[in-house]
């Protein structure tokens, strides 16, 4: 399947429909998490999203500015401890602490960044590693009231609970026993959304372009008048501020912070998430956070007996499996999940740009009802395969075994990916049929396939709704 399944024109009705499908997926993901997942799973999702923000911060420096910084766990830690201290000792509200925390991170970023960014390449990596390693021990210092603020080796708990106010009880998942983690989920989603918006705009702005220019050709950027030290340091400081924000979110989510949470291993997790998600892409940062938390969770459940020796994922080896995944990704998918997803998408659907005269740059598939098309054949296969895979997946998922579960997940995932294409091809046919306009077109084999494709997608959609309903009502 080297040529794409369907070719559509950019900005055309089919392309728009494809985009709506993507938005729909994203929205349903965001909505379904607090509804479908168990409270402890929502907690993990919260942690994943917090890491996403931290990875976004690392991405600003590593992905967009081309500097190797490995010490953002320390900025996270600072953010978390400042939040904990402000909320617990000074009785501030989390929302009041937010601007202070970001500012503290920003100033710290300038302090570390100024000397660190003077040096090139791997020296920055060295300094930031040292920073990440030193941080957990710094919070234990008894002088200057540090240990009093940080709780020293015991960590610091925040007794103020984050509970949804009465006017937010309508949020999905927020009520009853679940209110806690689900409401925190919505808080985190809100901060994450705003952060993403701001970072997107920042990258597209004038300073953002300077940051990218430095990554692509540092000397060249300098020649074109980019003030290297200022741009690099401010970018690093913004990134540090974002890292601190992630620390605040961490504190908000867990209600407890300890120096041992912010070790070099956390910094390694951030880098792993960054790379596996996709360096230099915003979506990659989001996916990276999810990957780090959920795959870590998954590896812990793996047990493989190998004769005398049993490979047990729930021990030190969890990290080894993680390291192996990291190496495999570096080798076989250097662009991370984002580029993998893009290549999958390019095989399914190709978006062709429009020439100035209004015609597409390449031949696009016809979606008129009843037209003959080779691709209709593929759509038929998909349409039949979709529901079949879904059934198999559903059966396997009920056999509660992890590896089988993984296969089931893969199957479900492939349906989620293929269903919209089936829909694209089939929906027009369905529309025509429902309107009763072209009943004769159904006779053609191709049209039959399209119809099946549309029906298959409807089936998937209904299945999703049914899942949603049963999960929602069973609570």
């Amino acid at each position, binding site marked *: 399947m080297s040529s794409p399944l369907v070719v559509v024109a950019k900005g055309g009705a089919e392309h728009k429909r494809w985009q709506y499908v993507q938005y729909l997926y994203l929205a349903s993901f965001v909505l379904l998490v607090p509804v479908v997942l168990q409270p402890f799973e929502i907690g993990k999702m919260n942690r994943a999203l917090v890491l996403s923000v931290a990875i976004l911060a690392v991405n600003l420096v590593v992905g967009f500015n081309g500097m190797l910084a490995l010490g953002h766990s320390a900025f996270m830690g600072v953010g978390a401890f400042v939040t904990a201290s402000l909320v617990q000792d000074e009785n501030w509200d989390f929302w009041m602490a937010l601007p202070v925390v970001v500012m503290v991170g920003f100033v710290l970023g300038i302090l570390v960044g100024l000397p660190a960014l003077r040096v090139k390449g*791997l020296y920055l990596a*060295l*300094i930031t590693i040292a920073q990440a390693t030193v941080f957990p021990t710094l919070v234990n210092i008894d002088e200057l009231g540090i240990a009093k603020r940080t709780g020293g080796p015991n960590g610091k708990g925040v007794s103020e609970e984050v509970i949804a106010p009465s006017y937010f009880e309508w949020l999905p998942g927020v009520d009853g026993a679940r209110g806690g983690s689900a409401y925190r989920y919505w808080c985190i989603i809100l901060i994450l959304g705003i952060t993403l918006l701001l970072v997107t705009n920042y990258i597209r702005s004038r300073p953002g372009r300077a940051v990218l220019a430095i990554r692509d050709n540092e000397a060249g950027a300098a020649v074109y008048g980019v003030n290297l030290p200022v741009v690099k340091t401010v970018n690093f400081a913004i990134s540090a501020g974002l890292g601190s924000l992630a620390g605040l979110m961490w504190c908000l989510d867990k209600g407890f912070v300890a120096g041992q949470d912010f070790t070099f291993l956390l910094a390694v997790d951030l880098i792993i998430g960054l*790379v596996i998600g996709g360096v230099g892409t915003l979506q990659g940062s989001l996916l990276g956070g999810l990957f780090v938390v959920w795959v870590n969770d998954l590896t812990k459940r793996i047990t493989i007996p190998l004769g005398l020796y049993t490979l047990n994922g729930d021990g030190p080896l969890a990290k080894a499996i993680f390291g*192996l995944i990291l190496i495999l990704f570096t080798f076989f998918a*250097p662009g991370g999940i984002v580029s993998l997803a893009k290549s999958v998408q390019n095989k399914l659907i190709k978006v062709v740009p429009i020439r100035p005269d209004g015609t597409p740059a390449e031949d696009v598939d016809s979606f008129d009802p009843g037209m003959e098309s080779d691709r209709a054949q593929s759509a038929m296969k998909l349409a039949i395969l979709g529901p079949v895979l879904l059934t198999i997946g559903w059966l396997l998922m009920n056999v509660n075994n992890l590896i089988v579960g993984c296969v089931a997940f893969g199957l479900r995932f492939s349906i989620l990916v293929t269903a919209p294409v089936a829909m694209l091809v089939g929906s027009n046919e369905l529309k025509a049929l429902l309107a009763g306009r072209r009943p004769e077109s159904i006779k053609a084999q191709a049209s039959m396939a399209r119809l099946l494709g549309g029906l298959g997608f409807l089936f998937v959609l209904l299945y999703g709704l049914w899942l949603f309903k049963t999960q929602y009502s069973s609570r």
Partner: protein
Amino acid sequence: MTWNFDILPDFVFNGLSLGAIYGTVALSLVLIFKATTLINFATGELAMIGAFMVYVLHMEQGLWLWLSILIAMIISAGLGALIERTLTRPFDPADHLPVVLITLGLFLIFNALAGDIWNYQVRILSNPFGKFPSWVPGLGGDRFVMVLGSRLKYQSIGIWVTLALALFLLGLILNRTKMGLAFRAVSSNVESARLVGVHTGRTLGFGWALASAFGTLGAVLVAPQLGGVNPNMMATILIYALAGAALGGLDSMGGAVMGGVLIGLIQAVLVMWLGVVVMGQAYMSILQLAAAFVLILIVLLFRPSGLFGSRRVERV
């Protein structure tokens, strides 16, 4: 306790021997950096695995300690060359990120494997320099000798002699052998090295092998100071070695050793003053880390390529 100059030599000796160990590990980092301009973050864990090999060969199989060390160094060298061949050679050396990730992955894997096989508890490994051997006149069997009114441990002397020997050997290999010449050529200009017929891949593998062997030596020497071997033994050592390498300049071998020794000395003396006199014992380790961190920041602020590193001019 008040400031007392009598105890100064004690701390200087300790600092010098610790510094020598940092220098050894820093050398391991610099050997790879010089050839590939990459930092091997798995250096510490590779060295730790080497120390465990000595543990298995010597403590469990009962081999002679120095033979065990030699075998472990050779196996580590092989492992290093293997890693270079299989994991780092396919990548463009100009792009740092992939190889940093590979070495971070190896760091996780080695640490976890060691933890799974040997647990995370400290295992005692005999000290190669516990007591003066019997042939030393007047000192045989003693653990130290009094110098300047302080105890100079046999261990410190042993570490210095070993490091000096290793450096001498490294100098011989690099300056007197064909492989060493090829290594220096590749570090200087990869393209030209290829044009005079040097197999660059093999040469880099040789660099990795040397580096891994040195790391293992460092780990074996440091083990007695930590009470034995354990999977996390190299974490802080690696940080100090990195600090030493950064201090000396990442592309200078002599600088790396000097930087390591300097870090050790500064730690010992500064920490003695701050830790013992001003604040108290409890803050020693924190201060050591913080001092190293602040030191690198200051040095790099004024000399971005380290004390002994060379500046490279870049063209657009």
